[in-house]
């Protein structure tokens, strides 16, 4: 079985061939090297992995297409696909890449500052709105370069979780 695993932020996937072994372990081949993996699933999403005798306590959380892998304190996000899924994704990629992006409140709080006006051109990563929650001010940033087409956020007003704040197109 062949998988294509892409580290978040990288473009090219790493090709990984997986072969189940008779004793319940797996043999994986990637980057030209073979690894033997003993993976024991514990409760609460934890997996004890012994990879070539190296021991790793790994935690997984699913996020959309990605899986977040928590290992040795680090979180590494990986997109794992098989052949079929990969082709499917290539076909649909054109649809999902662009379009309107709605920035919503990630938690209940108060809008303390609106940093843009309707019609502003914004860069990816540019601050749009500052929301105060849990005694902290959080700047919400634009997920893409584009133009501000709508602003619902009002300075000083309370917002619920997931409330629409700004739309960038």
């Amino acid at each position, binding site marked *: 079985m062949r998988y294509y*695993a892409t580290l978040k932020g990288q473009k090219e996937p790493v090709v990984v061939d*997986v072969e189940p072994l008779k004793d319940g372990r797996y043999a994986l081949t990637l980057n030209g090297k073979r690894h033997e993996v003993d993976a024991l699933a514990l409760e609460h999403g934890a997996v004890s992995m012994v990879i070539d005798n190296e021991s790793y306590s790994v935690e*997984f959380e699913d996020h959309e*297409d990605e899986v977040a*892998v928590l290992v040795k304190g680090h979180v590494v996000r990986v997109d794992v696909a098989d052949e079929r899924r990969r082709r499917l994704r290539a076909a649909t990629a054109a649809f999902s890449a662009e379009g309107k992006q709605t920035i919503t409140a*990630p*938690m209940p709080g108060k809008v303390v500052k609106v940093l843009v006006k309707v019609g502003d051109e914004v860069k990816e990563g540019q601050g749009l709105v500052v929301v105060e929650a849990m005694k902290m001010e959080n700047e919400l940033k634009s997920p893409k370069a584009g133009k501000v087409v709508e602003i619902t956020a009002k300075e000083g007003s309370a917002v619920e*979780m997931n409330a629409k704040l700004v739309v960038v197109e």
Partner: protein
Amino acid sequence: MASVKKIRKILVANRGEIAIRVMRTCKEMGIATVAVYSEADRSALHVRTADQAICVGPPPSRESYLVGAKIIDAAKRTGADAIHPGYGFLSENPNFVRMCEAAGITFIGPPASAMEAMGEKTRARANMIKAGVPVVPGSEPLASLEEGRAFAEKIGYPIMLKAAAGGGGKGMRKIEDPKDFESGFRAARSEALSAFGDDKVYIEKYLEKPHHVEIQVFADTHGHTIHLNERECSAQRRHQKVVEETPSPILTPQLRAAMGEVAVKAAKAVGYVGAGTVEFLVDAKRNFYFLEMNTRLQVEHPVTEWVTGIDLVAWQIKVAMGERLPILEPVQPNGHAIEVRIYAEDPATNFMPSPGKIRYLRVPGGPNVRDDSGVYAGYTVPNVYDPMISKLSVWAPTRAEAIERMRRALSEYVVKGITTNTRYLQAIMEHPEFRAGDYDTSFLPRNHEALLSKPNAHLEEIALIASVVYAAKRDEEKAKSVTIAASGDHGGISPWRLMRSAVRR
């Protein structure tokens, strides 16, 4: 002076880790405990830990934890003879102290007069100058733009403009160039007016890269005041402490003694009683200046407890009962202690808070590790209060060993369901500047990117392997269950294909 009055039941007017911290000592002293909680905190650990619990109102603090009358009422209903305020909330509110007095309930903290003497910035400065405590060079509240400009010239730029009436960064302006003085002066005044209803501002010398070092003081009702050494708190982000340690790596025994003496002088000048902390800025030449006094227990008090062996909460209660301090001489620090604050936040997204349900929790154990936690597995961290979920502290004979112990302890900390800053804290422990010891308040902001450490290539490969095995195992499970469910004809569709469409979203 005051006679000994036995305290039998304490209402803890707080939530989270500090409420539990106080209750732990109460239990050890055989004192009953009362929790108060807002409607958002019915499931909180402090409610489960206390002997009695009273709901004091809706989630916003100003409608529950900050309403003195409700707290007093809860104390009366449960027959509590004392109130411990923790930190934050009502802990530095002199009116609340008076309400307690009027109700015949012992407030575990300083008298209202001491709070007032230290509570307002320029008043505290004036009191300290009078007492001979060094303060950051600065002016009285400014009568005019011209007076301010002249004073700034005299002490030299850069300077800070600060609101006389308040704190917390509001009405504060750093001015580096004389030509910006006028606009800065006007802006600071208008901010001060809207924040505190008082437009008075004053000038302070701006200190470059200062260290934040504070002295723990303790005073009883019999006229004794001592200090319990310092805490180094320069690892700050947005004026919020992240890591604290004692002893300070930059203090000599002479400087410790000098600062301790001044801190005791400051406390005595305002008739202080109980646990308090005098905060200083220390500049590159190791001059130190009074910054402010916190008239309550500090978040970071555990590091002092580690190196002195003293239970500071027990001392607070005993002093409130009228007992004398058990020691009157400075305590030699034994070994080294470090504390880190565990926040439900994501350093990678500008420290965005991350409330939510804690699905799994494993706290570190083993030698000389202390976890002061306010949460438990299955608890939902609410989004209306401070995101600090725990304080982790360690002790070791030397600073180098304490750092290694903290790294080890952090590596054992597992919190699932919400994002925490444990990896960021780990990066601080690994940073050469922190390890060298001479880090100032610019350390964290200056190294922000470096502290968002990335996994190395080996760990990335491990993550790749792990994620593929995870996917393969899941696909296998699904294949199995589909095969079992199928047991026969499926019109030529392989169970593998069925499975895959079920798995992927």
